[in-house]
């Protein structure tokens, strides 16, 4: 960090030292207050999920007494709510989208990243691919809806699988291409000498080396697919195949005002990503900042 400044001990310096301490304490108080504002909604959500709606309306601050874990079992398995179904839909959609995106993006990253595959318009194509990041969803999702309607995929999970997988391609390809471009070329020469064709080189040598980048891509994409709302509600007007965000959105509308259960639904949907984050925060941040930073 900073080079320490040596000073002699004078009255002025002691005063300055105390002023610095005061500032430090004040700053800490302000920052902790800010952090409180960030954390309180999460904690509150957790707390109300194990109370009853009556209790919440009476006193939103109260602590759960008793702690109603049964809210969760009711939410998940009660025939009226059957949340396990939407959890499954989310896992289904995210899983297949990750798979599809992973395969296409890794191959694409390899093709865009290795210098042996460079050709005159490659840079242009990559730029065109990345240009998609400037596109707002509004300019895509109406025709996407019509497309899915024509394919008969509205109300199925596959519509989301396709759209999520392709929607994430720019970022995923960019991350993989950057990673692949940094691997030494001797590896390919060695593989070629061992008799590999191009796909062999990819499959046997480069791909196994790409695991760290793939892990980042998967983590990042999982978060986006799991949380996505706009396409989820557009492609699934009927409840059956809805993902978690879509169903949560309709939940309060369809099930009146059971806030406790709604709270439980929020916690269930938020938990997976938060848990992953608490274990893997470095990977998350690395993935999200890559490319946005010059340097």
């Amino acid at each position, binding site marked *: 960090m900073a080079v320490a400044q040596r000073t002699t001990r004078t009255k002025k310096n002691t005063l300055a030292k105390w002023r610095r301490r005061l500032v430090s304490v004040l700053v800490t108080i302000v920052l902790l207050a800010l952090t409180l504002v960030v954390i309180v909604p999460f904690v509150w959500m957790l707390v109300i999920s194990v109370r009853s709606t009556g209790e919440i309306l009476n006193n939103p601050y109260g602590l759960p007494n008793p702690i109603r874990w049964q809210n969760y079992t009711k939410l998940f398995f009660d025939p009226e709510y059957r949340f396990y179904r939407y959890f499954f839909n989310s896992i289904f959609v995210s899983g297949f989208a990750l798979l599809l995106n992973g395969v296409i993006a890794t*191959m694409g990253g390899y*093709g865009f990243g290795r210098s042996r595959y460079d050709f005159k318009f490659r840079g242009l194509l990559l730029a065109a691919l990345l240009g998609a990041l400037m596109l707002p969803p509004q300019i895509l999702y*109406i025709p996407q809806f019509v497309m899915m309607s024509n394919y008969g995929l509205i109300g199925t999970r596959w519509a989301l699988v396709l759209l999520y997988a392709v929607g994430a391609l720019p970022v995923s390809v960019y991350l993989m291409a950057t990673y692949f471009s940094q691997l030494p070329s001797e590896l390919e020469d060695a593989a070629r000498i061992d008799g590999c064709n191009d796909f062999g080189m990819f499959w046997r040598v480069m791909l196994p080396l790409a695991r760290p980048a793939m892990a980042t891509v998967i983590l990042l994409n999982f978060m986006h697919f799991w949380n996505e709302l706009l396409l989820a509600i557009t492609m699934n007007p009927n409840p059956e195949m809805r993902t978690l965000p879509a169903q949560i959105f309709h939940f309060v509308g369809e099930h009146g005002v059971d806030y406790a259960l709604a709270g439980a639904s929020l916690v269930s949907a938020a938990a997976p990503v938060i848990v992953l984050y608490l274990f893997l925060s470095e990977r998350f941040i690395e993935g999200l900042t890559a490319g*946005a930073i010059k340097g």
Partner: protein
Amino acid sequence: MVTKVGTKGKTVAAPRKPWRKPWGAIALFIGPVMIAYAIFTVYPLLASIYYSFHKIQPIGPGKILYTFVGLENFKALLNDYRFTDFAVPNTLIWGAFGPVIEMITATTLALIVYFKVPFHRFYRTAWFLPQLVSGVIIGLVFRWIFNVDWGLLNVTLRAVGLDSLALNWLGRTDTPLWVVIFVHYWATFGYSFILLLAGLTTIPEELIEAAYIDGATRLQAIRRVLLPLLRPTFVTVLILSFMGKMRAFNVVWVLTGGGPIHRSETVATYVQKRAFNWTSLDLGYPSAMAVVWFGVVMISVGLITRWLRGQAEY
């Protein structure tokens, strides 16, 4: 380099076969990406533009009628009070205020955490949490927090005697937009913060130490060294923040739905309403709206970039 037989053990370069570009492999690897991209991104983009010149109505199961209407949709936009008096001004206000506040606060926080105040690692982890969670969750939780009767905010205000401040945040006409802006800020400031912090950490420490050696105070080091070097990242984050606000949907939709009576309507929510929640179904009009707004955003980004990057390149 290869040892050619018959050269008395000296190493010479073997004459290489002329290397043909592996087109097959190229097509194999980047083909799927570009094809998928063309079908599901490029085509919809072009289709939106096509739609914006048409009236598009479903007239029976699986049948859609496309009627060319030229610039009708665009003219109608200018006469649509919901667009001109609510959606556009709201979104522009948001696009103007939001990024400014976000950049000032996020940069300040990034600088503070960069100088490693106590608990800095905890802050970094905590402030990013809102980013991890779906907009639907954020919208709902805050809809409850801002509830006029039993929401956390008003109950707290009443408990400390500030009853007069316990407003009907989401029900009045003057507050919902600001609630939306605040909640969205809550959800996204962590991202800007992290990006700026990452940008700061790429600045070589020697430069700051050199400034200290030259007698600079911490504040001077910030102003003269860190901020200028942070500039590229700053501009990138500002643009990302701006674009985000101009297209934001999830939080607004769940928090207020654009209401009450359009007071928190944004272009994004209005597009959604016209496309999927309107009594007369026509996909051409919202497409025109989306196309126009995309143009507005792109031009704005171009202007911002030119303004900020054009300044003092040293």
